C-alpha cells in the first residue's frame, strides 16, 4: 500500500515537472526561429523569466522524493545512466546561465551566443528527457546486485545489451522534443500578443501533425519493444481511458487552438502530457525499472521501497510541503498572469 502511494506521489511530481518546466523548455526551443527582433525576443523570454527556475524545482523535489522513497532505484538508475545524466547536468547549467545572463550583457555577439546556447540546450534537454523515459520503458541490463552501466550507444537496437540511444529511445526523444515545443508554442499564444502571438498560433498546426504521428509511432513501438506494458491495461480494461485521454486531449488541443482559445488549448496540452506519462507509469507498475536481462532482475516497487519508518516520516511532511509548494506556484503565476508587457516591470 505504501509502495502504491509513493509510486504515484513521485509520478505526480514528475508530471508536475514535465508540465511546468516543459513549456519553458519549449519556449527555449522555439525562440530561436519564432522571433524576429530584440523586442519580441525579450517578450518571449520575459514570459518564462519569473517562473522557469521555480519550474525546475519540481525536478529537484521529485528527485529528492525518489531518493528517499526508493533508494535502490535512485542508486541503480543514477549510476547506471551516469553519462547521459552528467550531460543533462551540463545542459541544465548552460541553459540556466544563458537565459538569466543574456540581459546582463549588452554586446550583440554575446547575446546571440547566449540565445543560441539557450535554444540548443533546451532542445537537447527535451530529447534527453524523452530518451530517458524510453530507456526506463525499454529496460536496462540489470545485474544480479541491482546495478548496471549503460554506454551511450551500442548497435542502436533495443536488445539485451542496449545503449542509452537506440531507435526506440530516439523516438522517445523526438516525441518529447515535439510535444514540449508545442507546449511552449501554446504558452506563447497565452502570454504574447500581436504578430508574435499569430506566429506562435500558426506553428502549432505543423507541430500538432508531427506530434500525432510520433505519438502513434511511439505507442506502437512501445508495444513492440515491451509487450508486457499492456498487461495492466488488459487486467483492468477501464484503464484504457488513459490512451483515450491521449487522443481526446490531442483533439481538443487542435480545436481550441483553431478557435483561438489559448488557455484551453494549453490545458489540453497539459492533459496530453499527463496522460502520456500516466500511461507509461501504468504500463510499468509495479515495476520501476525493468531488466533486459530477465524479469527476475527487475527493480520492483516492493524491492526498492524504503522501510516503514522512513516512509511514515516522509508522509508526515510531504503532504504539508506539497500544499505549500502548490500555494507558491499559484501565487507566482497569478502575480505574473496575463500578457507580457516588457515596459511594465517585465523582464
Amino acid at each position: 500500500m505504501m509502495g502504491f502511494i509513493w509510486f504515484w506521489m513521485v509520478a505526480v511530481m514528475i508530471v508536475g515537472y514535465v508540465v511546468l518546466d516543459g513549456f519553458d523548455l519549449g519556449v527555449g526551443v522555439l525562440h530561436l526561429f519564432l522571433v524576429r527582433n530584440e523586442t519580441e525576443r525579450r517578450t518571449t523570454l520575459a514570459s518564462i523569466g519569473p517562473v522557469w527556475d521555480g519550474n525546475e524545482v519540481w525536478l529537484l523535489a521529485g528527485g529528492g522524493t525518489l531518493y528517499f522513497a526508493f533508494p535502490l532505484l535512485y542508486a541503480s538508475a543514477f549510476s547506471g545512466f551516469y553519462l547521459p545524466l552528467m550531460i543533462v547536468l551540463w545542459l541544465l547549467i548552460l541553459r540556466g546561465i544563458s537565459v538569466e545572463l543574456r540581459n546582463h550583457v549588452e554586446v550583440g555577439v554575446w547575446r546571440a551566443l547566449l540565445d543560441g546556447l539557450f535554444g540548443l540546450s533546451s532542445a537537447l534537454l527535451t530529447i534527453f528527457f524523452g530518451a530517458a523515459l524510453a530507456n526506463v520503458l525499454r529496460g536496462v541490463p540489470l545485474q544480479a546486485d541491482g546495478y548496471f552501466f549503460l554506454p551511450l550507444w551500442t548497435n542502436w537496437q533495443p536488445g539485451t545489451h542496449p545503449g542509452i540511444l537506440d531507435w526506440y529511445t530516439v523516438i522517445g526523444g523526438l516525441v518529447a522534443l515535439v510535444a514540449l515545443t508545442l507546449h511552449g508554442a501554446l504558452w506563447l499564444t497565452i502570454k504574447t500578443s500581436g504578430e508574435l502571438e499569430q506566429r506562435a498560433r500558426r506553428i502549432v498546426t505543423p507541430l500538432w501533425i508531427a506530434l500525432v504521428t510520433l505519438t502513434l509511432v511511439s505507442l506502437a513501438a512501445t508495444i513492440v519493444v515491451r509487450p508486457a506494458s499492456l498487461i495492466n491495461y488488459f487486467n483492468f480494461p477501464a484503464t484504457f481511458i488513459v490512451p483515450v485521454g491521449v487522443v481526446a486531449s490531442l483533439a481538443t488541443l487542435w480545436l481550441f487552438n483553431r478557435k483561438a482559445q489559448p488557455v484551453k488549448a494549453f490545458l489540453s496540452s497539459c492533459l496530453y502530457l499527463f496522460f502520456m506519462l500516466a500511461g507509461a507509469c501504468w504500463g510499468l507498475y509495479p515495476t520501476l525499472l525493468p531488466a533486459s536481462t530477465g524479469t527476475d532482475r527487475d527493480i520492483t516497487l516492493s524491492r526498492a521501497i524504503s522501510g516503514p519508518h522512513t516512509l511514515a516520516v516522509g508522509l508526515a511532511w510531504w503532504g504539508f510541503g506539497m500544499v505549500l509548494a502548490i500555494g507558491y506556484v499559484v501565487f507566482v503565476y497569478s502575480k505574473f498572469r496575463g500578457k507580457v508587457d516588457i515596459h511594465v516591470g517585465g523582464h
Partner: protein
Amino acid sequence: MTAELIHRLHFAFTITFHYLFPQLTMGLALLIVVLKSVALKTGSEQWDRSARFWGRIFAINFVFGVVTGIPMEFEFGTNWARFSRLSGGVIGQPLAMEGVFSFFLESAFLGLFLYGEKRISKLMHWFSAVMVFVGSWISGFFIIVTDAWMQHPVAYDRLPNGQFEVLSFWQLLMNPWGLLQYAHNMTGAVVTGSFVMAATGAFYLLEGRIENYGRIFLKVGVIAGLVSSILIIFPTGDLHGKYVARNQPAAIAAMEGLFHSEAGAGLVLMGQPNEETGQIDNPIVVNDMLSFLIYGTTKAEVKGLDQIPHDQWPTALPLLYYAYHIMAGLGTWFALLMIVSALLLWRKRLYSARWVLWALLLSFPLPYIANTAGWMTAELGRQPWLIYGLMRTSEGYSNTVSASNGLFTLLGFMGLYLLLGILFTVLIYREISNGPEAIAADSVHVD
C-alpha cells in the same frame, strides 16, 4: 588513479565550487533585508537604490548557485550509489525537504523581488526580500542536517538488508551536531557577505567616486562584519570545536596536529605535521592552550593520534591540519580587522583611513578561503568514514562507474566551471564598476 579517489575528487571539486556562491547568497540576503528595512523606515531613495544594486549582484550570484547546486543532488546517485542505496531513506529526506520547503519559497519570492517592484507595494517588496532571506537560510539548514547526519548519525535504525531508516523526524532535524554546525556555518556566510559589501564600499571611497554609496556599504559591511567575525569564533566556533573534540577525537587530534596524548596539551599555531616522525616540524606552540580550549582547564588530557588505531586516522592528515589552521588563522584576522574598522567607524574616521580601506578591499577573497577551509576541515575530519563510525568512504562510491568515466566527467566539470568562473567575475566586476547610480530609479530589476 583509483575510482574511489576520482569519485571523491568529483564531489569535492563540484561542491567546493558550488559553495562559493551560496555563502554570498545567504550572507547578502540578510544584508539586503537590512538595506530594505532602513529604506522602508526612512523612505531614503539611496538605501532603496543600494538594495537594488545588491539585488542585482545577488541575482547573478544566485543563478550561479542554482546551476552549480543541481549537480550536487544528482551526484549522490551517480557517484555514490552504494552510499545512496543504504542511506537514501535518511539522506534523501532533508534533500527533498530542501526542494519542497526552501526552493519553491525562494524562487517564488526572488521572482517577485527582482521583477515585481512596480507591481507590488513597498511593504510587500520588503516582505519578498525577507522571504528570500528565510528561504535561503532554510535551504542551508537542510544541507547542514544532511551533512550532520553523516558526521554524527542520530535517530536511525538498520533494516535486515543493511539500509538505514529514519526513526524520528525531529531528532533528525535537531541533531545537536547540526545545530552547532548550522550556527557556525551561517555566521560564516554573513562574514563573506559583510566583507564583500565592505570591500565594495572601500573600493568606491578609495576611488573617490559615488562616495555616498561607499559610506552606506562600509557602514553596513563593517557593523555586520564585526558581529559575525566575533560570533564565528565565540560562541559558534568554540562550541562546535568542543563538540567535535568529544565526538570525533581522531579529527580533532589531526586538526591540531596532536600526535601524542598529553595532559596540558599545547596549541600549535604554526608548523608542519610530519606523519613519519609523529611530530610537528618548526612548531610555534602556546603551552597548555589546547587543553584549556577544549576542557576549560589547562591540566586536562587531550587524546592524541597515538591512542587511535591507524586505520581510523583521517586519510588526508596534513591537508586537514592545514585547512583547519588556515580557517582559524583567517578567522583571527577577520576579528582584528573588523574591530579596528568598527572603532574607526565609531570615531567617524573610517571613511578617510586609507590604509584600513585598503585592508578591507584586499581582504574580500579571504572569507571565501576561510569558508572553504572550514568545510574541508569538517569533511576531511570525517574520513575515513562516509557515515561516521558506520560506513567507510571506500564502501560508498559507485563501483559500476569506472575511474575513466569519472575522470571524463570531472574534466568536463572543470572546463565548464572555469568558464563559469570567468563569466561570473566579468559580470560582477561590471556591476561594481557601473555602481548603483547606473540603475535608473524606475528600472527595478535584472535587465
